[in-house]
């Protein structure tokens, strides 16, 4: 059976969860009445509904409820097999951004992978990437921290010099035994 038309439309883990719950809904109404299944098919998202109708026709199973059931169950299994690429971004990812990232994933990593995107403002820019147990922090925050650690002395030499001079002046003022006797009353 052909699932690629439907799976190619699943870009994120959110899309996947949505389709799984819709399949459960369809399976629930499948053997009730013919109208019942149609009603359930109309109640799910338009794009998934359309893709499923086309798939049923292409696989020539529109009139066979048992075949539809088998198709939907296998589709669930295929959905659960999809790999997840987790991305932490500093901004809200728009549909356009998701499309661009998904295209990059297909071109560079192949199909069968979906995106799990979450927002983390503290990373400033870039991304934190998690894939198949690997973790890579490629954020701007991390880069800046590295720069500030490696060039710490250079940065401090510029900004602290003036404070250091004024501090020393203060600390060296009138420190003799006589002055201590007066201060501590001994």
């Amino acid at each position, binding site marked *: 059976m052909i699932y690629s038309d439907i799976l190619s439309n699943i870009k994120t883990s959110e899309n996947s969860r949505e389709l799984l719950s819709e399949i459960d809904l369809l399976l629930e109404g499948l053997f009730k009445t013919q109208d019942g299944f149609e009603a359930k098919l109309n109640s799910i998202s338009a794009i998934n509904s359309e893709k499923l109708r086309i798939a049923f026709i292409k696989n020539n199973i529109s009139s066979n409820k048992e075949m539809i059931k088998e198709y939907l169950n296998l589709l669930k299994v295929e959905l659960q097999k999809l790999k997840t690429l987790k991305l932490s971004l*500093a901004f809200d990812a*728009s549909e356009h951004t998701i499309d661009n990232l998904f295209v990059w994933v297909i071109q560079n990593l192949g199909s069968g992978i979906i995106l799990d995107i979450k927002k983390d403002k503290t990373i400033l820019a870039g991304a934190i990437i998690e*894939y198949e147990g690997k973790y890579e922090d490629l954020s*701007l925050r991390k880069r800046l921290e590295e720069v500030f650690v490696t060039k710490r002395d250079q940065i401090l030499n510029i900004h602290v010099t003036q404070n250091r001079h004024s501090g020393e002046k203060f600390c060296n003022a009138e420190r003799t*035994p006589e002055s201590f006797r007066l201060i501590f009353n001994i």
Partner: protein
Amino acid sequence: MTLEPIVFFDLVIATVVLAATLGVLVVSYVKTLEKFKILQETRLTWQKKESDIESEAHKKAVLILQEARSKATKIISEASASQDLLKKTFEEQLKAASLDQAKKLETISEDFLKAYQTTLADLKGNNIKTVSNISKDIEDSTKSELEDFKEILRKETFASQKIVEGKIEEDYKIVEKELETYKAERLKKIEEEIYNIIQNVSKEVLGKTLSLQEHEQLVIDALEKAKKEGAL
């Protein structure tokens, strides 16, 4: 009316039998009455004897009681007389003993008084001498101790002065060292704060000045780098 001879003989026989029976009964009754009379007399005799014995016993009891009472009265009177005599004797002897003891005590008191006066006179003489000697000893001892005290005080003052000077020098060094440490810590803390401020400002400025396209490009760059490094 005529009676049959047999009936007539039967009646005669019955009358004779009845008469005989009646006679036996009368004799028996008379004998019983005589026996009763004898018994009655015997009972009266015993009652009289019992009454006599009782009255005699009563008389004897009264006599015994009278005798006992008289004896008791006699004993009590004799005892009272003895007690009075004993009391009188005791009082006389006590009076005599008291007088004797008073005389003895008076004699002893006079002896003691004489001895006390003698001893007191002796002690008075001795004490005057002792007090005089003690005053002189105290004077000498006080002069000596005062001299020693002056010397010790002079030495202690000198030593204390040295100790205080040493302590001041020591404290001065400690405080100077603490001040140096404090100064270094403060400078280090100031450096840290300046560093953090610069870092935070840099992050804020860099994060906010990027456009959406630049953000997207940085994400793509990150993905490219991750792929190159083998993370993808």
